[in-house]
């Protein structure tokens, strides 16, 4: 796995030759990523007969392009109508949607596309160059380290709670409580399921996402004519190509922010079992912690949009590393890819790199080409996509309700999930109206069960000895970083106030 520029150049050239597979996959991925309930994994399952019947290289290229573009697609409805297409885009509306309400939807889309494409492109190249070392990361990060990494994400609840700490914490713990519903991780004891068999596997994420964001938003906005503010309406009326160019310039001006937040995504993506949702929340939390203007986060702040979008696209290449190097899929989509490749008789691991290096590196070069092509194909669409925000709420709200409810039905095909989405919609509506942050509830629902799973694993392995949480060197380093991270905003705020007082 040594670096040889000539070989890599040839591989990029080969991947570029598959443009006729990549382009349709990009458009399909953007559509399925943008619809809640759909995902790259679902779509590949639907198109499994096609993926299997194609030659292995073409099938692989198709799956990779679809995977990368669906990640970017998930951010589009999150920004425009406050509906994240997947859990990985759940942190995107925190700043993306306020930008839309201000009439900056087109600009926000351009920022999201540049951050996603550059973040994805950069991390793909990094993954390609540093694959052996990144594979080591997956070996060194065990349950203890994962607990600390997840706590970085959970601590975002405290960050969100900055405006009204008590309400933010209640929302977060309410979410964690909901996330605890389902059978326990060891003995499968049903907990808090109210007798519903459909809840034994825990609260399904898509209905929670659809309800908390889409349904509650639809019921909240119907008393207004538009989701846009008055200034936003004026801004949208006068928009041409300017906001797209401006958005690109703004995103490029924060190139360093794109780099480091996408690397967070890459590292988290490498860990099997972690995912885009964790990465985007952690990146958002880190971005806010180290920002000079943390108070602007949540109001339509540029860096608040860049961080989750770069990070969740950084995850995409990260999940491929354990798949290719050790044969362990880093996520659901990677697992389905593994099934397709195994059907074709491809064995993962060192053997693949020795015997078929062109196939081993193809997913990374394809992903890089996909992100490169996406920049040019999707960017001009930002102007037209953003027009959706001028649709009157009397038409928009029923469309959002019906299509997202059916989206909640799709993953498990339970009518129960549609009802569950409606219940979450009511919870989200109450939370919005009474200033309990829906994002804090969602963080609890997403990260709660994962955190509990890793915690129980550590406790079982160490016979209930809590000191095991501090038993690894890397884990202890991460604990120190976490404490420093939580304390830092306090000290930075104090420093700023002192400076302001002196001035």
């Amino acid at each position, binding site marked *: 796995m040594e670096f040889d520029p000539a070989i890599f150049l040839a591989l990029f050239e080969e991947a570029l030759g598959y443009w006729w597979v990549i382009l349709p996959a990009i458009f399909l991925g953007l559509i399925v990523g943008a619809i809640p309930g759909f995902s790259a994994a679902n779509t590949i399952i639907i198109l499994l007969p096609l993926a299997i019947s194609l030659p292995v290289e073409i099938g692989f290229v198709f799956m990779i392009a679809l995977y990368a573009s669906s990640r970017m697609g998930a951010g589009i409805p999150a920004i425009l109508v406050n509906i994240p297409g997947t859990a990985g885009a759940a942190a995107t509306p925190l700043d993306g949607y306020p930008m839309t309400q201000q009439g900056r939807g087109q600009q926000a889309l351009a920022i999201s596309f540049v951050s996603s494409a550059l973040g994805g492109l950069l991390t793909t190249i990094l993954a390609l160059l540093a694959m052996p070392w990144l594979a080591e990361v997956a070996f060194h990060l065990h349950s203890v380290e994962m607990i600390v990494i997840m706590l970085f994400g959970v601590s975002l609840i405290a960050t969100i709670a900055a405006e009204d700490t008590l309400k933010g914490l209640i929302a977060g713990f309410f979410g*964690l409580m909901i996330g605890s519903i389902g059978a*326990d991780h060891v003995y499968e004891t049903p907990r*808090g399921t109210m007798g519903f068999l459909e809840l034994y596997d825990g609260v399904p994420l898509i209905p929670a996402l659809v309800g908390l964001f889409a349904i509650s938003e639809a019921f909240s906005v119907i*008393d207004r004519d538009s989701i846009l503010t008055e200034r936003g309406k004026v801004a949208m009326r006068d928009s041409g190509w300017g906001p797209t160019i401006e958005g690109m310039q703004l995103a490029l001006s924060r190139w360093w922010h794109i780099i480091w937040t996408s690397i967070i995504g890459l590292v988290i993506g490498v860990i099997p079992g972690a995912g885009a949702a964790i990465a985007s929340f952690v990146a958002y939390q880190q971005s806010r912690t180290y920002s000079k203007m943390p108070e602007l986060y949540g109001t339509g702040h540029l860096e608040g949009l860049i961080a989750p979008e770069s990070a969740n696209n950084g995850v995409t290449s990260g999940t491929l590393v354990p798949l290719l190097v050790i044969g362990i899929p880093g996520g659901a989509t990677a697992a389905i890819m593994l099934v397709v490749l195994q059907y074709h008789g491809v064995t993962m691991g060192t053997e693949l790199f020795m015997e078929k290096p062109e196939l081993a590196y193809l997913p990374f070069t394809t992903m890089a080409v996909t992100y490169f092509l996406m920049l040019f194909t999707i960017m001009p669409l930002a102007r037209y996509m953003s027009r959706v925000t001028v649709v009157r*709420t009397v*038409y928009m709200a029923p469309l959002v*309700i019906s299509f997202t409810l059916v989206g909640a039905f799709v993953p498990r095909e339970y009518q129960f999930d549609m009802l569950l989405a409606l219940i979450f919609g009511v919870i989200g509506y109450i939370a919005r*109206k*009474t200033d309990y942050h829906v994002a804090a509830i969602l963080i609890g629902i997403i990260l709660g069960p994962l955190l509990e799973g890793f915690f129980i694993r550590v406790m079982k392995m160490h016979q209930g000895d809590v000191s095991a949480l501090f038993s690894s060197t890397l884990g202890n380093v991460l604990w120190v970083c976490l404490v420093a991270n939580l304390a830092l905003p306090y000290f930075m705020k104090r420093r700023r106030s002192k400076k302001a007082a002196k001035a």
Partner: protein
Amino acid sequence: MTVKEGDGLPDEEQEKEKRASLGGDLIIPVSGSIFALYYFTTIWNSPWTAQVSAFFIGAVLIFLSTIITIRIVRAVRAGEAHLNFDHLLAPIDFMGKRIALMALTIAYILGVQWGGFTITTFIFLSLAMLLLNSGKNKKLIFILSLTMALGGWALFIWAFETRFPSGPFENMMKGIL
């Protein structure tokens, strides 16, 4: 001279206007605490692995909820707030439409498994848009609902072969195509 909100109201009513409406603020903490207590009953006799995190999370939730309840009760007793749900229901003149839309949504969820995606979505969209638009633009609403329902069928069911709820229309089209 600028006219401020509340100008022209009697003093007593102006005072009431200033008071915060905090009844809605209690819904999430109270329902969260009730759920936490119910949750405890389901794990009382379970192994410690099933209890450990839930007891911690539930206890913190109940503790925080108690604090906010005390905060709200103190504000009410001090005359700074009242326990109604005005803030949650505002604007009050729109509440009828909101309740009707909720009823339509429930009917849509219950009906979609019998009527299938296309027909039920068309009916839901038409009725919901007519409701929200106070019966205006009937032609536009009819065309829009029909286009979206058929477009949804074509994209999701026909093109992607997604297993959306099936009904008479989907079965008929399956037979034809």
